[in-house]
C-alpha cells in the first residue's frame, strides 16, 4: 500500500477528533504505521476542527503534508481551512445533506457525497452521523470492521447510557460500510439553515425568527412565561430545530428577544393593538 494522506474536517463539536482517533488506532492495530495531527482553535465548539492523518506501510518520518489524497468535509465552515490541501486528484468526501455542491471548490473532480446527516436523522440518532462517515472511509481505505468497532466502543462506551445507544451506534457504523457514495446526483442540502427570515403575524402580534442565526439552545422556550414557544420543524445553523410560535398564546412580552443570546427571535404586539 502506498502512503495515504487523509484529512478529516468539520466544525468543533461534530466529533471530528473522536472519529480520527478511532481511525488511526484501528489502522495501527491492523499493522500500519500512522501519524495523527489534530488542529483546532481554542474554542470549545463552533469553529473549524481538522485532523491530519498519514497511513503507510513504512515508517513515517515527517507527519506534515501539503496535498491530501482523501479529504472529508463535514461542516461548511471547514471548507476554507482545507482548501489549500486540495488538488485535482484529491478524493473529496462531503456530507451532501448539509453542504451543497456549489459551496465546494470547483477544481476538485473526484467528489463523493455521503448524506450522513439525513440517514442519521431518519434511521439512527442525529449524533451518530460521524460514525456513518467513518464507515464509508474505513471501507474506502480497507481497515477491518471489527477493529474499528472495538475502538469506537473504547472511545464512546462512556457516552452509551443504555444498551440501545450502543446498538444504534453499531448499526450506524455498519450502515456506513454499505453506503455507495453519490458521485453525480447529490442529495439536496436540506439540513441547512434557511437564509431568509421567518415572519409570523396574526392575533394582533408579529415577529421575526432568523433560522441562520439560531443555535437551538432552548433558552427562549424555557423563558417564555406562557409556553407559546416550542421546537419546530425547521433547522438552525447547527442543524438543530428552531422554535415555533403559538400566536394565540403569545403575549408579546419580548422575553424571547431579551434572552436570546444570538439575536434570532423577536415577538411584539402590533402598534394598533
Amino acid at each position, binding site marked *: 500500500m502506498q502512503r495515504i494522506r487523509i484529512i478529516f474536517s468539520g466544525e468543533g463539536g461534530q466529533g471530528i477528533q473522536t472519529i480520527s482517533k478511532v481511525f488511526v488506532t484501528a489502522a495501527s492495530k491492523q499493522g500500519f504505521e500512522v501519524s495523527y495531527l489534530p488542529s483546532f482553535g*481554542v474554542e470549545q*465548539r463552533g469553529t473549524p476542527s481538522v485532523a491530519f492523518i498519514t497511513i503507510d506501510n513504512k515508517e513515517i518520518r515527517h507527519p506534515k503534508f501539503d496535498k491530501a489524497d482523501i479529504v472529508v468535509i463535514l461542516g461548511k465552515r471547514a471548507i476554507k481551512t482545507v482548501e489549500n490541501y486540495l488538488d485535482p486528484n484529491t478524493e473529496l468526501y462531503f456530507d451532501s445533506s448539509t453542504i451543497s455542491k456549489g459551496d465546494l471548490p470547483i477544481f476538485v473532480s473526484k467528489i463523493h457525497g455521503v448524506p450522513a446527516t439525513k440517514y442519521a436523522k431518519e434511521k439512527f440518532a442525529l449524533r451518530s452521523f460521524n460514525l456513518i462517515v467513518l464507515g464509508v472511509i474505513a471501507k474506502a481505505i480497507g481497515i477491518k470492521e471489527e477493529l474499528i468497532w472495538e475502538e469506537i466502543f473504547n472511545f464512546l462506551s462512556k457516552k452509551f447510557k443504555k444498551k440501545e445507544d450502543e446498538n444504534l451506534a453499531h448499526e450506524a457504523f455498519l450502515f456506513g460500510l454499505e453506503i455507495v457514495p453519490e458521485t453525480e446526483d447529490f442529495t439536496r442540502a436540506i439540513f441547512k439553515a434557511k437564509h431568509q427570515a421567518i415572519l409570523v403575524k396574526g392575533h394582533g402580534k*408579529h415577529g421575526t425568527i432568523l433560522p441562520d442565526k439560531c443555535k437551538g439552545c432552548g433558552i427562549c422556550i424555557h423563558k417564555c412565561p406562557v409556553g407559546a414557544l416550542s421546537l419546530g420543524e425547521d433547522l438552525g445553523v447547527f442543524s438543530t430545530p428552531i422554535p415555533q410560535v403559538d400566536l394565540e398564546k403569545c403575549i408579546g412580552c419580548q422575553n424571547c428577544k431579551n434572552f436570546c*443570546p444570538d*439575536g434570532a427571535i423577536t415577538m411584539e404586539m402590533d402598534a394598533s393593538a
Partner: protein
Amino acid sequence: METMPKVWRSKSKPHLFCPGCGHGVALKQLGFAIDELKISDKTTIGIDIGCSLLAWNFFDFDTVQTHHGRVTPTMVGYKMMKPKRTVLAYMGDGGAYAIGLQSLIHAAFRNDPITAIVVHNDLYAMTGGQMAPTTMPGEVTSTTPTGKPENFGPGFFGPELIANVANPKAYIARASISKPLLVKQYLKNALLNQQKNNSFSMVEIMSICPTNWKMNAKQCFEKLSQMDKYYPGGEIKKGNENAEN
C-alpha cells in the same frame, strides 16, 4: 422589528460563542444600552482573553484585543489619550479577579474613568471548565470533581472587594442575566457615570455556561438562581449620590 441591537455587526453573526452562552445575553443588553444612549459613534471596547475574546468582531465600533488580565490598564491608557470617548473593558471573571485583579483594583483606586464589565460564570470556560476564584464551595468543576473543598475558601466577591478601595464617585453593581432588563439598566447607569461623572464604573454580570456545566437551558437557569442567592445582586456603590465627597 429588529431582533438584534443596531450596534451588533450583523456580518459576524452567528457569533462564535457556544449555543446558549451567557455572553450573548450580556452583549445584547450592552448593545441595547449603547443604542438607547446613542453613543455608538464614540465608544471603544477592549476585550480580554478567555471566552470573552470571541467578541472581537462583535460590534460595529472600535475594538481592541488585549493580553490576559490587561484589558483594564490598556483601556485606561486609551482613555487618557482620548478622554472624549466612552471606553469599555470587557472581561471574564478569570481575567478580572485572578490574573487581572491588581489592574482592576488600581483602576478603581485611581478613579480612572472607564467602565469595566465582568462576566461571571464560576469557572474558566475556554480551557475546559477549571476552578476559578469565583467557584462556590461544593461546586463541581473539572479540577474539583468532588466539589470545591472547604479549605479552598468561599467564592470571590469581586465588586464588594473593589468597592472597599474605590473612589466614592465610582459606580459598582452586580446584575444577573436572569433579569436582562436590569443588566441593561445597570450598564446604562455605569456608562452615564463614566461620561457625566468622569469616574470609574464596574458592572458584574452573573452568566451561564451550558457547555462546561453540561446542562440544558432549564438546569442552567436553576443553577444561576442558586448563584444569584450566593452573590446577591444590586448597586453596591451608586456613584452619583456620593459625588459631593
